[in-house]
């Protein structure tokens, strides 16, 4: 029987190889539909009315004040601003997608498009926290940490939860913290603009493999001589994993192992390379990979919505390539892909004193879209709707807690039962809310 201290340490041993899974009867709460989770975070808040939520009324009323007034958002907004981008139907499902995401449109039959998302606040930080940690405040474990804790890793030589961003998104490391969960469940942040061999701290072997082997053999003998040492097996196992990681990890990150055709499909961009790396990591058994589109909040186009064109040119091919690639390799069935940002953008033009030009949109927490694919999600589905201008979710509103509950469900976990007792209280990812969205499940 393990005591509490040993439990924490054992759980942490091989990146959570013995995670919560062993404490749940039968490993998970339900038979899992999916094993992996990829979260493509278009940080900054992409505009739904310019991408996945067409609004004919908005086009019609362009330049006029909204008859129902503007909702409160972060800054001041004015007249309605029609989308400069054309929408068209794609796939068998005929879901309308804008020209910005034409390639994603090509695989839209794999996606459930939720058009009725909402979050509490029109500000980046609380919304980023809500998506990633379940509450609009810091201090709670992140989505990926909960999965690592609940499900463990499938590859002892790699962390169970990897986060990629060329630098740091707004808020930063708090978004992949394990908080009060054991530190082993923390996301390992790697800068995907760096060389493969610099991604994990201290991963570069400083001595030859042969020397290290001698050292570890000696260490093993010396440690075993201290017979009163209950930690001895854990320590040695840890050291062996570290030793193997030095060769395995850099190889996973080495994209030159992929064909030029594949690399070109994803695009030679930070996000494109990130998506390709995500596929390689998932293939190697990493549980959760999260990719932040860029540093700080690139999709935050207050000034000029035309900036979306440049951003989408990087995002669109990478998303489409990832879905196709996963599907082709038979991995899409067991991998859930979530695409979207912390909130959407206003249908009205931003006119706050902070913007130099007036062709952009403010944050919109009242209504926006998110996309889900793979892992038992019913593709070609549209769920929920915003009002006729796209300001507010009015039909079947969905909160991030519902998305989190749904993803946990597909991974075999009951979001109300995946808990951790800390400072005298049971905590969970979805706090006290969340409902599985049954209608988007296959």
């Amino acid at each position, binding site marked *: 029987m393990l005591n509490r201290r040993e439990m924490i340490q054992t759980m942490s041993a091989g990146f959570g190889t013995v995670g919560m899974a062993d404490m749940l009867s039968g490993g998970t709460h339900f038979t899992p539909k999916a094993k992996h989770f990829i979260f493509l975070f278009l940080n900054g808040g992409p505009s739904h009315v310019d991408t996945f939520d067409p609004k004919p009324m908005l086009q019609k009323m362009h330049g006029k004040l909204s008859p129902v007034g503007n909702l409160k958002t972060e800054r001041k907004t004015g007249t309605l601003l029609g989308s400069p981008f054309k929408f068209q139907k794609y796939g068998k499902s005929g879901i309308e997608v804008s020209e910005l995401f034409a390639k994603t449109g090509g695989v839209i039959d794999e996606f459930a498009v939720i058009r009725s998302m909402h979050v509490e606040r029109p500000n980046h930080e609380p919304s980023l926290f809500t998506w990633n940690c379940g509450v609009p405040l810091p201090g709670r474990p992140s989505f990926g940490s909960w999965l690592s804790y609940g499900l463990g890793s499938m590859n002892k030589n790699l962390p169970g939860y990897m986060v990629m961003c060329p630098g740091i998104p707004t808020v930063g490391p708090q978004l992949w913290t394990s908080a009060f969960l054991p*530190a082993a469940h923390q996301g390992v942040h790697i800068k995907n603009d760096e060389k493969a061999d610099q991604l994990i701290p201290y991963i570069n072997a400083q001595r030859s493999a042969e020397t290290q082997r001698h050292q570890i053999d000696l260490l093993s003998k010396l440690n075993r001589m201290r017979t009163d040492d209950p930690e001895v097996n854990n320590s040695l196992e840890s050291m062996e994993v570290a030793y193997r990681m030095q060769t395995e990890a850099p190889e996973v990150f080495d994209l030159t192992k992929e064909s030029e055709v594949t690399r070109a499909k994803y695009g030679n961009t930070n996000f494109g390379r990130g998506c390709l790396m995500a596929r390689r990591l998932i293939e190697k058994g990493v549980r959760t990979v999260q990719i932040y589109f860029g540093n700080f909040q690139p999709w935050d186009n207050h000034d000029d919505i035309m900036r979306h064109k440049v951003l989408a040119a990087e995002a669109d091919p990478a998303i489409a390539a990832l879905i196709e690639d996963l599907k082709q390799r038979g991995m899409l069935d067991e991998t859930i892909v979530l695409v979207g940002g912390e909130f959407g953008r206003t249908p009205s033009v931003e006119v706050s004193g902070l913007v130099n030009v007036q*062709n952009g949109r403010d944050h919109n927490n009242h209504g926006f879209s998110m996309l889900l694919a793979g892992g038992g999600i019913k593709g070609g589905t549209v769920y929920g709707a915003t009002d006729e201008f796209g300001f507010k979710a009015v039909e079947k509103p969905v909160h991030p807690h519902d998305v989190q509950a749904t993803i946990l469900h597909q991974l075999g976990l009951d979001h109300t039962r995946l808990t951790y007792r800390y400072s005298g209280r049971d905590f969970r990812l979805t706090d006290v809310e969340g409902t599985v969205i049954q209608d988007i499940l296959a």
Partner: protein
Amino acid sequence: MRRLLGIATLFALTGHAADSPAEFFEMRVRPVLAKNCYSCHAQSKMGGLELTSRVGLLQGGKSGAAIVLGNPDESLLMKVVTWEHDRLKMPPNGAKLADAEISDLKEWIKTGARWPDSPTATKSKEYVIRPDQKSFWAFQPVKKSAPPQVKNSAWVKTPVDNFILAKLEQNGITPNKPASRLTLLRRVSYDLSGLPPTPAETAEFLADKSPDAYRKVVDRLLAGKRYGERWGRYWLDVARYSDDKLNSTMEEPAPNAFRYRDWVVDAFNADMPYDKFVKAQLAADHMNDPKLLPALGMYGLSPEFQDDRVDVTTRGFLGLTVACAQCHDHKFDPIPTKDYYSLLGIFNSSEYKEYPLAAKDVVDSYEAKKKRADGVEKELKDFLQRQGDELATILSNRTADYVLAAFGRGPKDGLDPTGLDGETLEKWQKYVKRKEHEHTYLSKLRAAKDGDDWQKLAQEFEQLALAVNREKKEIDEKNNITLGGSSKRGDLSQADLASLERDKYFLWRDLFGTGGVMFYGDKKIDRFLSGEWKRHQDLLRTRLDLDKKAVPEKFPFLHALADKEKLLKQRIHVRGNASTLGDDAPPAFLTVLCDDGHPKPFTKGSGRLELAEAIASPTNPLTPRVMVNRLWQWHFGDGIVRTTSNFGALGEKPSHPELLDYLASNFVESGWSIKAMHREIVLSATYQQGTADNSAFATKDPDNRLLWKANRKRLDAEALRDSLLFAAGTLDETAAGQAKPIDDANHKRTLYGYVSRKKLDNMLALFDFPNPNQTSEQRVATNVPLQRLFLLNSGMVMDSAKQLVKRLEKIPETQRISEAYRLLFGRAPEAEEQKLGQAYVAHGADAWPEYLQVLMSSNEFLYVN
């Protein structure tokens, strides 16, 4: 009682026809408005309309008054809800009101729209603490009981042992054998100083056969300055100390944060009474002792989350999770929402203040110079912007000429291109040749052929450009008026402001916006200026340069707090929503900790000093219990109450409640001396036990809650790094001072390294350093492969091994292995260890650092028994 009354009234109303206007309103009208309208027309005031008061309806919104008294047919509200209005049909999204509801509204307007003062306004009912909550153990006065009798009294060294042994005997468990003297010395040295004993200290202790040999060691350690460096750091975990601010987009150091850290270290070394230590951190600015001011860093360095200050105060000092009560009364503990806001109000009536640590003239001179430089900078910026605007207007008056020239139509058609500005013309040429434009105004010119009237097309385009520029200025002016002259960002602000039509906007942006064809900003505009304008600009630039250079480096200061001049009247935020205000929450202490359950409002300034006195009061049952429990945890790994920052109903119960109270009362009686508590603890036989396991006892008490053995501990991040440097002989023991990054060049103790909220140092994060964004109650110790990578490959470990080789090279080769063991483990190697070592170093010249690296990665180095 109020609740009962409410139900009775409700019954009466539903039972009879609503006879009075007030009742009619409450039963038939208010619910309809609330259910259907308030999501948009209460706080959000959509369309400028607020339907929460009669005045709101009469004033109406952008479309005019919502009601005409006595005349429902003329009332906009009726037209809108009956969907007779051509544009507005409410509620939106197809949810038309029921006919009965519509006729009620009609009736109400017809009879004068009476709106009585609400009997059910947001007044909350009085909060009552239940008897079972009041009698919860943590809220009872600290009660000192006599140490219990034990059978094996020979084992007892201090009264602590009576409490521990009594429980063990009850459970049929016997305490472990004492740790070996070597193990004990290493344990107590790490515990009280964060570093291992030196070989000399070990030799001295092992040779000292006097009965008080161990006590002498404890005295030496408690008197050393390393003690404060170890224990001050534990407190900094609770105080969520860091050297920077949590800024998501850029580095933002708090350059004087270290002064708080150093004050904490000094306070521990000086054994400052804990009550004073608490009060100073909360209210040093009210204590007439400038030496205490750095203590305010605890709050001056707050990460500024809205509940941080209440959270750190209540969890940190009191072991209560009051921040849980910000949206609703605490679900488990007797903490009403009002208590949260009473405490919040204290901090909201306080503000961040920097206390300069320099003479007044130094401060004044800095401020004056800074102000002057900032002033000139703004003047220059404004001047350049005005000139840029002026220039664009001038240039725009020749738009036709530029456009013709840009299309190559100038000379050919007999137009004189002279007088056109070369750079501007180039920009025009580039612009008209662009593949795509986001407006259509240039399309005619672009499609024009030789025979067309180029002149006319160009003139038309010019008129358009001028008109768009004028229109933009007018709109800006109008918006500026709408915004009351303020263009500042208002949180959650909302306004329907005007803007240019999109095509016009694009044209304006391309021609006049930043980077547009006619835009010339800083530096670029220089060549257009001459005469007085040029001289003025040069003068401003020169002045700015000089003034900036004249600003000296900022004087040292303290990140601290002060009371606001205008104190804030805090009100409850109903369900945590700042826009729904409830009752007043005057500054006061927690209800449950006041004798009669009625906290008296604080009256002195923000109330911080009174709060501090209430927390640090000897009769407060929580403060001394929480602190002695923390001290116990930092010695043993777990507290007597394992949830050290939560003594509430969801926290764990104490394993030894009488012991906890015995220590807490001794703590207060000793004058709140922390060092006295250390002595109580480390001199006990309980503390001095060995770590050997016992499977029978482990079955009875798997978590070792009863302390039948000592807990083995992994070195934390600070102790690990300090020990590597210590073994290498390169540890720089200079105390205090500015925090530096924890890199290979930094050899100071780890607590003096830079602690970042934004990006915690790799090594610290890897070895479970607590998150500095919130108060932290316990260090966890994980054992993961990434930590092993640090041991395998970090410069820190490799360098330490190399340095240790240098130390050993001074002695004969045959003695080096035993000397390494003495330095690292305080003992001689066993024969087998000696043999393995010799075999390894025989590999060659590089073998020594490799070998020492192995010793430094061994469990004996990483763990303390």
